């Protein structure tokens, strides 16, 4: 398996659509 850690998540907004069973990546930088 592969594990995607938080260092590689940092540049993006990570979206957990739990009901819709999908995971999204949006523009990030936390600004």
């Amino acid at each position, binding site marked *: 398996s592969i594990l995607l850690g938080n260092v590689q998540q940092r540049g993006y907004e990570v979206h957990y659509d739990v009901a*819709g069973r999908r995971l999204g990546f949006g523009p990030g*930088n936390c600004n």
Partner: protein
Amino acid sequence: AYANDNDLSHSYIVSVSSLIPPTVCNRTRTALPQGPGKVSLEVLGRYGPCSKLNQGKSRNTPSLEEILRRDQQRLHLKNSRRLQKAIPDNFKKTKAFTFPAKTGIVAADEYYIVVAIGKPKQYVSLLLDTGSGITWTQCKPCIHCSQQRDPFFDPSKSKTFSKIPCNSTTCKILLEWFPPNGQDKCSSKECPYDIAYVDGSGETGFWATDRMTIQEVNGNGYFARYPFLLGCTDNNTGDQNGASGIMGLDRGPVSIISKTNISYFFYCLHSPYGSTGYITFGKPDTVNKKFVKYTPIVTTPEQSEFYHITLTGISVGGERLPLKASYFTKLSTEIDSGTIITRFPAPVYSALRSAFRKRMKKYKMGKGIEDLFDTCYDLSAYKTVVVPKITIHFLGGVDLELDVRETLVVESVRQVCLGFALLPSDPN
């Protein structure tokens, strides 16, 4: 002066000094995502310069080696849990079966939020962990709490606090889901739980319910749940580095996601170079949502607890690694906020490392960090460097182009490392 086989459009040109994380907190963001139906909280890195847990004291910050060592321990425990899940239930019930690794969670790392528990409210800091389900906090009285610098939750001061009774149906279910170490029933009137870490530390405690409040600093956004199931830890032998618990965000049966009507949340984890991040419980605005690209969450029963997605390839410097998409899609990819470093199985890591080294061949290699990083560079002789872009591709045409600071982990300019690692082998 740049190597011929590189394409600058697929590389970053960065100043070496900019790779060193700042030591001063710099809050540049002005507002959290706001609006009806959502609650946003500031997310802080517990080791970063803005951390309230560090209290501005560098002696409280563990070394990078120590942080990475803990990250590796977490991996071993996660592997153990997977191994246990793969074993049929009827086999688990036989007397001959004993399993050396215990079910539970290991400390998440890096990012925390502040929430309130009880009535009147008591504020505690909880580490965000999409890779575990139990939300627990350190409760008074506690036996080993010396490491903790955040205030403890004192159940005796909460009017809404209740212990789950041992003889309740809820306790029976919880004991089945999270069997305590060395005992299969209550030893007192409390319903026990037990979290064990691979380094020998752990927590013991009991299950309880109380009011959980997630509230924005300005008081506008507000979310409360009562009764909320939580673990009340009374004996913590591990070092949580100042945090007083964990918020479990997985899809398992006891997480805050399963136990509330939160069906959507999103976070932005700041890098050490930024200031603070945020987490929002609730859906984003329609305007913002259109910029989000989605990939399906795998929903097989074996993967129902965590957030598994499907990776289809990796590119380095604009070139796909020579591994077929069908190879990647057979792998299971879990996204975890509590794990620091991305781990790949040997064929993937080997191909990634090889492609990265090829494009970085003009730079002098440096000493590795622990057993985790073996592709490090001594960049002390350079003012600027050219680093190939790494892009991770997911099912549905979602491409994650990593910034240079999500590609490299930096100890010093003499130790700048490719920030990916090999997945540990079978942890038996």
